[in-house]
C-alpha cells in the first residue's frame, strides 16, 4: 500500500489565501482497514437494503458477515466489489474509494457472488484462463496459475473436465479458485459454503486459513453462525441493513444472549441436544447426567444458530 501522504506544500500559502498564512500540513495515514463503511445506504428499487450501515473490517483476518436472508450481507459485499454503487455514505476498500476508482479496487479484490454460476461446455482451465485474462494477468503465467489454483482447491489434474460435469460443491470451489487468479489482497466470498458437503466445507475453510497465512484478508458471509464462529476471528451480525453487533465470535454470542445448546453423545451412539440458560444450568445438567449413570462420551456446547439468538427486532418501517 502507499505510505503516508503529506498534503500541502510547505512554504506556499494555501490556494486562494490573500495573505501568507502559517504552513499547513495534513498527514493522511494509510487506511489500515480492509473495508470501512460509514453511513452506507444502498437501495434495490424502493427497498433500502443497507440502512446507514457503519462497519470496519480489519486487515489480515478472516471476517464473518452473519445475517438472515435480506439482511444486507450480499449488498455490502457487492458494494465493496464495485458491483453495486451505494446511494449514500462513505465506503473505502483497501483505502480506495470504489466509486472513484473501481478498477483499482478490482485489481486487489477477489469476489465470489452468490449464487455463482459457471458457463457451460467449458473446460476448467479455459475458464480460469479467461478469468485471468479479464483481470490482466500476463499470459505466460496462466498455465502455472491454473495448476496452482486447481491444486489449492483440491481439483488437481482436472483441467480438462467440463464445467457442466462438476458437482455443485466442485463448482463452488472453482468459483473460489477464480476469485484468486489475480492474487487479490482482499477476498470477498458471498456464502461460499452454500451447497457444499462437510468434506468440501472443510476443504474450503482450510483454503481460507491458508490465505490468512500469507497475509490476505478474507470476508465471508453466511447464514450459519456456528460456521462463521468456528472459522472467523471476527464476526459482524447484520440485520435490516445495519450492524447489530461486531466482535470476536464467542463474546458476540454471549453479548446477544443466546441460549446455550448442549450436545450430549452417549456410548450407544445416540445424540441428545439440551438447551440451557447459562453456565450454572450447564453444570447442573452435566451433574444430573453423570448421577443418572448415563454413559456419556461427549458433552459439548454447540454454537447457536441465528434463530437461537435474541436479536433485536428491526425498527418498524426501516425497510
Amino acid at each position, binding site marked *: 500500500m502507499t505510505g503516508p501522504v503529506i498534503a500541502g506544500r510547505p512554504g506556499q500559502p494555501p490556494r486562494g489565501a490573500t495573505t501568507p498564512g502559517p504552513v499547513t500540513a495534513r498527514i493522511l495515514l494509510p487506511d489500515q482497514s480492509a473495508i470501512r463503511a460509514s453511513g452506507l445506504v444502498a437501495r*434495490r428499487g424502493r427497498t433500502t437494503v443497507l440502512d446507514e450501515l457503519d462497519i470496519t473490517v480489519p486487515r489480515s483476518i478472516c471476517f464473518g458477515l452473519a445475517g438472515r436472508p435480506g439482511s444486507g450481507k450480499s449488498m455490502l459485499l457487492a458494494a465493496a466489489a464495485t458491483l*453495486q454503487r451505494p446511494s449514500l455514505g462513505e465506503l473505502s476498500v483497501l483505502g480506495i474509494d470504489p466509486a472513484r476508482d473501481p478498477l483499482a479496487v478490482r*485489481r486487489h479484490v477477489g469476489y465470489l*457472488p452468490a449464487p455463482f*454460476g459457471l458457463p457451460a461446455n467449458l473446460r476448467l482451465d479455459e475458464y480460469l484462463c479467461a478469468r485471468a485474462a*479479464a483481470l490482466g494477468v500476463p499470459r505466460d503465467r496462466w498455465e502455472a496459475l491454473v495448476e496452482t489454483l486447481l491444486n489449492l482447491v483440491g481439483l488437481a489434474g482436472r483441467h480438462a473436465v467440463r464445467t457442466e460435469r462438476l458437482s455443485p460443491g466442485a463448482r463452488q470451489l472453482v468459483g473460489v479458485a477464480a476469485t484468486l487468479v489475480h492474487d487479490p489482497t482482499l477476498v470477498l466470498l458471498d456464502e461460499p459454503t452454500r451447497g457444499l458437503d462437510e468434506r468440501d466445507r472443510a476443504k474450503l475453510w482450510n483454503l481460507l486459513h491458508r490465505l490468512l497465512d500469507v497475509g490476505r484478508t478474507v470476508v465471508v458471509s453466511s447464514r450459519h453462525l456456528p460456521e462463521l464462529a468456528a472459522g472467523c476471528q471476527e464476526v459482524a451480525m447484520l440485520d435490516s441493513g445495519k450492524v447489530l453487533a461486531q466482535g470476536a465470535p464467542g463474546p458476540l454470542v454471549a453479548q446477544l444472549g443466546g441460549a446455550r445448546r448442549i450436545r450430549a453423545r452417549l456410548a450407544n451412539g445416540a445424540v441428545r441436544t439440551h438447551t440451557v440458560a447459562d453456565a450454572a444450568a450447564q453444570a447442573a445438567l452435566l451433574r444430573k447426567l453423570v448421577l443418572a449413570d448415563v454413559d456419556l462420551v461427549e458433552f459439548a456446547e454447540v454454537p447457536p444458530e441465528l434463530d437461537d439468538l435474541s436479536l433485536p427486532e428491526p425498527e418498524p418501517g426501516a425497510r
Partner: protein
Amino acid sequence: MSSAKPERSRAVGRPIASIGLRTRMRGVVGPVVVVVWLVVLGAITAAVWLHETGTDQPFRQPRTDPAAIGRAIGQWWIIATTVGVLVLVPVVAAGCIAGAREHHSLAPWRVSLLRPRSIVGGHLITCAAFVLLLAAVATPIAALAWGLGGIGPAELGAGLGCSVLTGLVVACVALAVSSLTRRTATALLCTYLLLGLLVGGSAVLHAASDRSDGRPVDAVLLANPVVVGADAAASTTGHRGAPRAAAADAPIDHLSRLVHRGNHAAGPFDAAWPTTLAAAALLALLALLVADLGVRRQRAR
C-alpha cells in the same frame, strides 16, 4: 496501489468472445442450428429446382435453360440467407447476456477489468462469428447457382454481404434486448417481436399505404431487410440485368421492380439500399449503447 494503470489492452473483449464461441459451438444449440440451416437451404434449393424444371403448373413450360434455373436458385438463396439470419441469429444472441445473468455467471465479469462495452463487444464477436459460419455453410449453394449461370458473383456477393450485415444488426438488437431482460426466453421472444414488427410491419404498412395515384408507398419496404438484400443484389446488375426469361418470377427481380417501380432505368448508383444501410448502422450503434447500459445495470441481490 491505485497509481498503476490496469492492463486493459490484454483483456478487451477476448475472454468473453473466447468463452462465448466455445460455449456455443460445444453445446447442442450451435451444431443443431447449423444442421437445420443446411437442411433448410438444401430443401429450398431442391424445391426451386423442381419448380423450375417440373411441369406441375398448367400453362407453363418447364425451363431447360440452366441460366434461368441458376438465377432462380441464386436469388432464392439470397432471400433464404437473409431470412435465415433473421431467424437464427437471435437464437444465439438473445442468450448471451440474459443467459449469463440467468446462470449467475455475469457478475464475475462485471468485477473484472473488462468494461461493460468490452463485455458487449465480446458477445458481438461471438455473434459475428456465428453469422459468418451461417454464411460459410450456405456458400456451396451459391456456388451451384453460379455454376449453372444466370447470376454473377457480384450479385451473389452483394446479397450475401447484405445478409451478413443484417445478421450483425440483428445481433446488436438481440444483445440490447438480452441486456435488459432476466431470462433468455424473454429476450428471444422480444427480439422476434421487434424483428417481426420490422419485417411484417413494413409489409403491412406497404399494403395499407395509399398514394394519390392509388399505388402504395414502395419506399416503406426499405425497412424490410429481405427487400433491402434484394435491392442490393439487383443493384449490381442495374435492375435490368436479369435474363428476360427469369425476370418474370425470380424473387429478387420482382422485389427490385417493386422498390423501383416507375424507374426501370435505375442503375447501380440509384439503388436505395445504402440509405437503409446507414439507418441500420445507426440502429446497431444505438442497440450497442443500450446493451452497454444494460450490462452496467447488473445488480446485487
